[in-house]
């Protein structure tokens, strides 16, 4: 049931940006990915989520166990907080909308349309979606952008609860979430040395 990444290379815009990335995450573990702007965190996470193919290496994870939260929250402005969550719960065939709202401190806003939320409130709603997917592995790209200190702490608590229930969490972030128990992986050393076009040896003329 672990997430095992072995010797992975990922590419963006036709160029390999990271290579030789290997790590594994066991149930109950969190892994924080760090690295300067543009090193390839977003690219790595999208590859893990299956949205783009890997250039090399392997990702092994239980099927349909992974959910991804990017910078865009996937919220519909004209639906209320509750309707937004209900939709994702229905798509994943899971319940727990009320509980998710309670955990992310959204109960008071349940009937508010997403359009009328502030930046931070929107983010909280986006993160509450994770709770109604029923998926074990959370793959999060800068989840705390525009959250204030209290909300960051709230979110860290939610992550801890998920880990406690045997979940796994991967977070790419520039700031400190206060998740002291989490392992940290710096992606700097995996930066592809001489970036290579992704056609394999065959298309070497493009390099």
């Amino acid at each position, binding site marked *: 049931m672990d997430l095992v990444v072995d010797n992975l290379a990922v590419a963006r815009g036709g160029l390999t940006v990271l290579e030789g990335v290997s790590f594994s995450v066991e149930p109950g573990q969190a892994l924080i990915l760090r690295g300067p702007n543009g090193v390839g965190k977003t690219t790595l996470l*999208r590859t893990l*989520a*299956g*949205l*783009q*193919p890997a250039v090399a290496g392997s990702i092994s994870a239980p099927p*349909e166990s*992974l*959910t*991804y939260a*990017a*910078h*865009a*929250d*996937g*919220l*519909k*402005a*004209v*639906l209320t907080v509750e*309707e937004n969550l209900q*939709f*994702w719960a*229905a*798509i*994943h*065939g899971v319940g727990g909308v009320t509980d998710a709202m309670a955990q992310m401190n959204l109960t008071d806003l349940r009937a508010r349309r997403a359009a009328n939320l502030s930046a931070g409130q929107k983010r909280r709603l986006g993160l509450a*979606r994770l709770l109604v*997917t029923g998926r074990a592995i959370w793959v999060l790209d800068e989840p705390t952008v525009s959250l204030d200190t209290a909300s960051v702490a709230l979110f860290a608590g939610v992550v801890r609860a998920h880990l406690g229930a045997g979940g796994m969490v991967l977070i790419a972030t520039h700031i400190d979430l206060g998740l002291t128990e989490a392992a940290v992986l710096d992606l700097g050393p995996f930066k592809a040395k001489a970036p290579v076009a992704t056609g394999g040896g065959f298309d070497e003329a493009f390099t």
Partner: protein
Amino acid sequence: MNALLIRDLRLAFRAGGGFGLGLAFFLLVAVLVPLGVGPEPATLAKIAPGILWVGALLACLLSLDRIFALDFEDGSLDLLATSPIPLEGVVAVKALAHWLVTGLPLTLCAPMLGVLLNLPGPGYLWLVVSLAAGTPALSVIGAFGAALTVGIKRGGLLLSLLVLPLYVPTLIFGAEVVKRGATGAEALVPLLLLAGITAGAVALLPFAAAAALRVNLR
């Protein structure tokens, strides 16, 4: 899949969701053409089948970019792609929602606009039947075009350019049904051909559209 259909319909009916706009555009075309062409009843009766079909087609066209672009922009499409629903299913449901929101109302309201354009009596039944048989193809072909252009900012015009040539056979057979129907001629053959196109498009294009979406998401 049900949840997705319900959400799409709900979004269409909420404020700003665009329900009824296609219909209104259809109405406008039916009004503008006599204004441009002139009020002569005989001329209008002659061109009515063609203009009604072209109008329905354009009305359909203009709402196509809503099929995927909104979900792409707010990130929902990424999340749907990692959800348990296969992407082909997403395409099919979204094309269905599009048809329910535009094609179906167009079909139901077309006879009213037939009056504006002086469509001859026997044509009305054939107009409704041909639109009912043809508009699903417009939605599915449109969903394919929308999937191709989903990553492109304000790609509406490009989408039109790509989709319109694909609409040609549907348009020809559809208008032919009404034209023949209106003059009392045999209209079953083009109607069957129209239905054939719809069946083929519905069966095959969701796969092409899902492939295009996968390419655009990566």
